[in-house]
Each structure stands twice: as structure tokens, then as C-alpha cells.
């Protein structure tokens, strides 16, 4: 390790300790375990800065935060999954002694009315799960395709109907809008330059744009036809509208992202440094 980097390390460490002590003393009396809490807050501030330092360049502090984050979060989801799904959902159904061990009330619900009793039916996912684990073995690996087939197959069927409904039929029928509405003046259009949805005139114009926009957008997505002539024009208009939309949503998102940053500033300046009340 280079000398300079060692020095930097030491400096950061020193600063960490100082701010820890400062935090702890500032919390003395206000909170019990102030030393420990002071450490936790200082540590999360350190992690915050470590991540931000990535903006300058990849560095040991970022690497530290990153690797810690990966390990801890993986374990977090593991524990969550175990307690909520295995213990919460599976164990109570398959074995009373196990559920007694994990102190969860055994479930015997109306599944029993179905073909097989619970305990049996719920061994199937266990078996499928074990099949999945078999992929670690050299010669039994191929069997892990079965549980995958089950998951992919059932979700494919599931998605097919639901997307056909929500993303197709319902979208199509909602493009049926009146394009010629009887004239009832221009509403707030001129008085308040309200382009949003005011007045018959603007509503009508809006409907036209929406209708033609959808049509052209769809034309753009044609794959098996050369985009030439009128067809080409349609698809060009389509991509224009897409681009305008992309630009707009990009610009619109900026606000939300900035407030995320403000949130972190509040943590650093408020919770940690206590500069802002």
C-alpha cells in the first residue's frame, strides 16, 4: 500500500473517531448508550460519504461500503425469506413438531378439502426446491430444470391472459375517444392559457393528438414491414412523439431526484452534524 494512501486512511480514521466522540458527548444525558448511538450515527454518516465519494472515483472507502452492503443485504433477505416463507408459510403446514420447535401455530386450512391433505401437497414445493439444489451435483444437475419449468410455465400462462387484458384490450378500448365534439367555446384556453384539459377546443385537439399519436407509435413498432412512404412517415411521427415523451419524463424526474439528495443533506447536516434543526 502506498504511503500517501496510508496517511489518508489514518486521517479519515482520526476524523471518524473525533466526530464519534463529539456526537457521543453531544448526546450525553439526552440518550442512554450515547457512546453506542454516537458510533452508529457516525458510522452511517461515514458510509453515506463513502458512497458519495464514488462520484469522484472508485476508492477503498467505496469498496468497503459496497462489499459490506452486499454481504449484509444478502443476509438480510436470507433471514427475511427464511422466517416469513419457510417458517411462516411452509413449516406450519407440513409438520407439527417442527412448528412447535419454531413456535408457530400449525395451519390446517381448507386445502385439506382439496385432493390431498396439506402436509402432502406442501411437500411438493419442498421436493421441487431440493431438485433445484441438485444442480450443484455433477450428474443430477439436469433435474433442476423441472422446478424451473414449473415456475416459468405457470407464470407464462398467468402473464399471457393478464397482460392481454390490461396492456392490450383495455388500452385499445380506451383509445376510442370522441374526436368531433360539439363546439362549446374555448374554455380557459385564451383567458388563462390553460392547455391542460380545458374547453371543448383543447379537449378535442388533445384527443386528436392522442389518437394519431397512438396510431403512429404503433406503426413505429411494426417489424415485418419496410418503413417507406406513408408508412415511413407514420413511423417517423411515431418516433418523434416517443422522443418528446422521453425528454419530458426525463425532465420531470429531475425534481424527484433532487429531493432525494436533499434528504441525504438533511441527514448529514441535521442528524449527524446537527447544524440544521
Amino acid at each position, binding site marked *: 500500500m502506498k504511503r500517501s494512501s496510508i496517511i489518508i486512511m489514518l486521517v479519515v480514521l482520526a476524523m471518524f473517531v473525533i466526530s464519534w466522540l463529539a456526537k457521543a458527548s453531544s448526546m450525553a444525558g439526552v440518550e442512554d448508550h450515547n457512546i453506542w448511538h454516537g458510533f452508529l450515527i457516525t458510522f452511517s454518516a461515514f458510509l*453515506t460519504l463513502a458512497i458519495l465519494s464514488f462520484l469522484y472515483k472508485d476508492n477503498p472507502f467505496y469498496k468497503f461500503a*459496497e462489499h459490506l452492503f452486499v454481504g449484509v443485504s444478502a443476509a438480510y433477505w436470507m433471514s*427475511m425469506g427464511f422466517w416469513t*416463507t419457510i417458517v411462516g408459510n411452509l413449516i406450519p403446514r407440513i409438520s407439527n413438531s417442527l412448528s412447535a420447535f419454531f413456535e408457530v401455530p400449525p395451519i390446517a386450512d381448507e386445502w385439506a378439502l382439496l385432493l390431498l391433505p396439506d402436509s402432502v401437497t406442501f411437500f411438493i414445493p419442498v421436493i421441487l426446491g431440493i431438485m433445484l439444489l441438485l444442480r450443484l451435483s455433477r450428474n443430477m444437475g439436469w433435474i433442476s430444470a423441472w422446478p424451473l*419449468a414449473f415456475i416459468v410455465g405457470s407464470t*407464462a400462462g398467468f402473464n399471457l391472459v393478464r397482460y392481454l387484458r390490461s396492456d392490450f384490450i383495455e*388500452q385499445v378500448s380506451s383509445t376510442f375517444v370522441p374526436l368531433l365534439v360539439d363546439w362549446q367555446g374555448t374554455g380557459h384556453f385564451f383567458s388563462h392559457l390553460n392547455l391542460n384539459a380545458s374547453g371543448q377546443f383543447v379537449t378535442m385537439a388533445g384527443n386528436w393528438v392522442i389518437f*394519431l399519436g397512438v396510431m403512429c407509435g404503433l406503426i413505429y413498432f411494426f417489424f415485418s414491414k419496410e418503413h417507406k412512404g406513408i408508412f415511413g412517415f407514420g413511423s417517423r411521427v411515431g418516433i418523434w412523439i416517443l422522443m418528446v*415523451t422521453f425528454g419530458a419524463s426525463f425532465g420531470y424526474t429531475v425534481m424527484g431526484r433532487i429531493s432525494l439528495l436533499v434528504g*441525504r443533506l438533511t441527514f448529514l447536516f441535521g442528524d449527524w452534524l446537527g447544524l440544521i434543526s
Partner: protein
Amino acid sequence: MKRQVPLALVFIFGIFMIIQYFIPHEKSEWVYEFFLDWIYIIGIFALALGIWSLIRVSYDKIKYRRPNWQYAAITLLGLFFMILFGFDYGRHIFSAEGLRNYMFVSFFDYILIPIQATMFSLLAFFIASAAYRAFRARSALATLLLLAALIIMLRFNPYFGAVTPYIEKTAGWLLNVPNLAAKRAIIIGVGLGIVATSLKVILGIERAYLGKD
């Protein structure tokens, strides 16, 4: 056997789920909810595979002294302790109380949350750099993208005096009208894509996910 069984399973379960959608009766609901439960449970077994892969990769890194191997140790330590806390609760080992373990909660509040929030807040910077780098009037399309973004970003900017209200209204219109049109076109396309792909999966035409291509 190795090739045919999975494809058969995919077909059977796929068709079943389609039919199930049209049967409101309790019996079919039961089976449906059943399958969802199963998928979760299998998912947990898979997570074990995931953790195993994570451990192996990190371990190899350390063993063969690959670049940055020291950090792999940090990953493993974090993993180890978090699991320990998550599964142990004082004397009361192996109980869901683990999720309420003091250290488990502190790790969550003071390590996971701040890093997560900060990673998320990096977007504020990246959205700026992306805008600077990419919003150039290179072509007609790029210019459209650029102008639309500018109008939206100027929508509440007071330094244009009388013009601002016009900008704001235009912005509002852009967000309500062309936006809706484009999104709907995309949604319909995506919907078709999903339906077609699911169908191909069920019919066994799209089978890369089984490693059979």
C-alpha cells in the same frame, strides 16, 4: 427424458393457468393460490443457491488473492454476522424474534438504510451528468428530446417573467397529451410482446431459459 419432461411441464402448467383465469370457482382459486405459495417456497431454496454462489465467489477471491480480495472478506463477515443476528435471539436461538434482534435492527437502520438512500440519491448527480453529456442537438430527434426536457425543467422557473406561465402550460400539456399517446403505444406493444413471448414459452418455441436453444 431430460429434454422432454420440462417442456411438457411448461406446457401443462401454462395452459392450466390460462384456463384457471376463466374459472372464478373457489376450487380453481385454491389451486391458483397454491401455485403462488409454491413459487415463493422454491424461491427460498434458490436463495440458498444464491448465497452459496456469493460465498464461493468471495472465498475464491480470498483464496487466490484476486484483486481486492480483502474486501471479499468484508462481504463474508457482513453476511456471517447478519445471518447470525437474524437467526439468534439471545438465549432464544432459532426464533422469528431474530428479525427483532437488536443488532439485526441496528444493522438494518444504520448500515442498509443509509447506504441504500445514498445510492439512490446518486441519481441526482447522474441525472445531471447524463443531461449534460447526452442532450446535444446532434439530430432532429436529439433536438426534440432536448427541447422537451428543457421545457419541462423550465416550467417553474420565475426568471422569464411573463413567459413562464406559457412554459408551464405547455409543460402541462406535454405531460398530459403526447405523453399519454406515446405511453399507450408502448404499452400496447409491450403487451403484445409479453403475450407472444409467453405463448412461445408455453409452446416450447422459446426455450433458452431451459438451456435448450
